[in-house]
């Protein structure tokens, strides 16, 4: 499998307007490095799938847009000649073929002889952990097995880019998490260039070398999972990726003035003055004794969800503050509490950022 090699992908001003006039994608430019896993994340209708389909060759970008694989212009190449692998949410396995026939289909189309095909199929089935299912028909497989077959089929001909369109969305939560880990291992071990579309931020975090957050047909932010999570470019990214408390407040002298007290802000944000929008993650807030605390409030709800407590505290800002606390502390609705927030955990946005 070591000979699998990805290409770099370059999108240059790719916009997409559908025949009915819908503008699905503003002119988007971006690079995916060789061997990188790039995740497109966003709500439905944000253009992430359209971008994927443009890379695949299932959609042509509007005039002016170009798609390059390792510098080669493939904009006008139909999908069947782009040598890309695709995995769909619905699996899209051929129901009239066995598992082995599905996986070997791209090899058969390319005229590779039976013996070589069988060897390659066996290798792929071992790799994806479905050995022994060769002669099963598709409708005898579980959802997880189907997705593994779809993956093996997509990488069988050593594609230049592997394109995955919400491949895990149809599976249930625990299976999704297990397959996510497997998929991660597989993508790393293949060293393949992968473009992955999802609306699930946990999936994006776990799989992406970098994440492209999209919104209304445009890119909202590109960055590593940590950059996206800790330094969201705007309020939309902050709220879409992870949970976020959004505080609208007056800034000055290194503090945010909130209803429940003063929240110190750090780093470059210290210099900011006037009306700002700030963001604090629920797990960045810790309970302290109310005496002497800079911020105080009253606990409204406490929900035990196993590995932590999900609490809301009122009286701190306009809206109740969400706090994720360790499951070992003891706190009840009605308690007066002090809150401590690391100044570095407060991120400021300009007020107009939507």
């Amino acid at each position: 499998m070591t000979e699998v090699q990805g290409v770099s992908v370059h999108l240059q001003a790719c916009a997409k307007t559908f025949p009915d006039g819908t503008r699905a994608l503003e002119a988007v430019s971006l690079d995916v490095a060789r061997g990188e896993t790039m995740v497109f994340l966003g709500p439905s209708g944000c253009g992430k799938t359209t971008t994927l389909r443009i890379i695949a060759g299932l959609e042509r970008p509007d005039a002016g847009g170009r798609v390059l694989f390792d510098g080669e212009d493939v904009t006008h190449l139909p999908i069947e000649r782009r040598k890309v692998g695709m995995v769909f949410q619905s699996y899209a396995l051929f129901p009239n073929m066995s598992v082995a026939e599905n996986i070997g289909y791209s090899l058969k189309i390319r005229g590779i002889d039976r013996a070589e095909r069988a060897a390659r199929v066996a290798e792929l089935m071992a790799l994806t952990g479905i050995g022994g299912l060769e002669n099963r028909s598709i409708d005898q497989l579980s959802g997880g097995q189907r997705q593994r077959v779809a993956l093996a089929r997509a990488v069988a001909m050593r594609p230049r880019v592997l394109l995955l369109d919400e491949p895990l969305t149809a599976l249930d939560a625990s299976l999704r998490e297990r397959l996510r880990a497997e998929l991660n291992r597989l993508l790393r071990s293949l060293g393949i260039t992968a473009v992955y579309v999802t609306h699930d931020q946990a999936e994006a975090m776990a799989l992406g070398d970098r994440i492209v957050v999209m919104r209304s047909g445009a890119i909202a932010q590109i960055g590593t999972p940590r950059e996206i999570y800790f330094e969201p470019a705007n309020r939309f990214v902050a709220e879409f990726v992870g949970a976020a408390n959004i505080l609208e407040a007056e800034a000055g002298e290194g503090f945010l003035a909130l209803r429940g007290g003063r929240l110190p802000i750090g780093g470059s944000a210290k210099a900011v003055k006037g009306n700002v929008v700030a963001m604090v993650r629920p797990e960045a807030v810790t309970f302290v004794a109310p005496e002497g605390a800079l911020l105080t409030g009253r606990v409204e709800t406490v929900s035990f969800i196993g590995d932590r407590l999900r609490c809301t505290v009122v009286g701190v800002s306009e809206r109740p503050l969400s706090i994720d606390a360790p499951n070992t502390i003891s706190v009840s609705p009605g308690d007066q509490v002090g809150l401590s927030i690391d100044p570095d955990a407060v991120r400021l946005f300009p007020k107009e950022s939507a």
Partner: protein
Amino acid sequence: MSGATFLRLSLVPLAVIVLAFFVLPMSQLIIAGANGPLGLKAYAAILLEPRYRETLVNTVLLSLAVTLATLVISTIAGLFVQRNRFPGRAVLIAMLTFPLAFPGVVVGFMIILLAGRQGLIGEVTQNLAGGKVVFAYSIGGLFLGYLYFSIPRVILTVMAAVEKLDPRLEEAARSLGAGPWAVQRDVILPALTPAFIASSAISFATAMGAFGTAFTLATNIDVLAMLIYTEFTLGANIAMAAALSVGLGVVAWAILALARSFAGAAVAAAG
């Protein structure tokens, strides 16, 4: 009263209906077939008597030919109409399905108007080539008439099946390197197979038993339904007519049952 009791009460009318309505006449028919001068040999005569055998073979061959032609035409038309949006599409679909509403007599009548002695094709060929082409009363007319019956029904079935096709299947095949022909061969046609089996069976069974068209055309080709009618009314050979009826029913029913075991519910729906 529970739901189960409610349904159990329906058992009584059901039993009465089945007995009186289905079992009685059918067994009458089977008995009548064996009650003639030939006795049970009447059933054997279907295959042994050359005239009967020939008719049976003719009917089966004609039905097969109609089924095959219908499948080819309907698949192309159904795929095209379902996959493309163009002006007049709704009118086209309405037109394609119009013959569903016509009884066999009217279809026969239309064939005569088209290819009969005073028909359109005859006139055109006489003017163009000097020779009058008339095929309404031959096997060609029957074939055309039966197509009229089958095509609308099969087109509707194919269209319904095409609509249910997951477009991702096609895209997956293309991403794996399959060109348009390979996609048709490996993805689309196999996915339509249950619809093909179901509608072939219906088309075949209908063609086997079609009477109105054949009768109106007063065709010189004997088909089974005509033969049964002739034996019964003209020859007054009730036993032979009954035996032939049973034979025809068994063949058609076997085809339907066979198709149902392959294609499951699709046949019921298309039936």
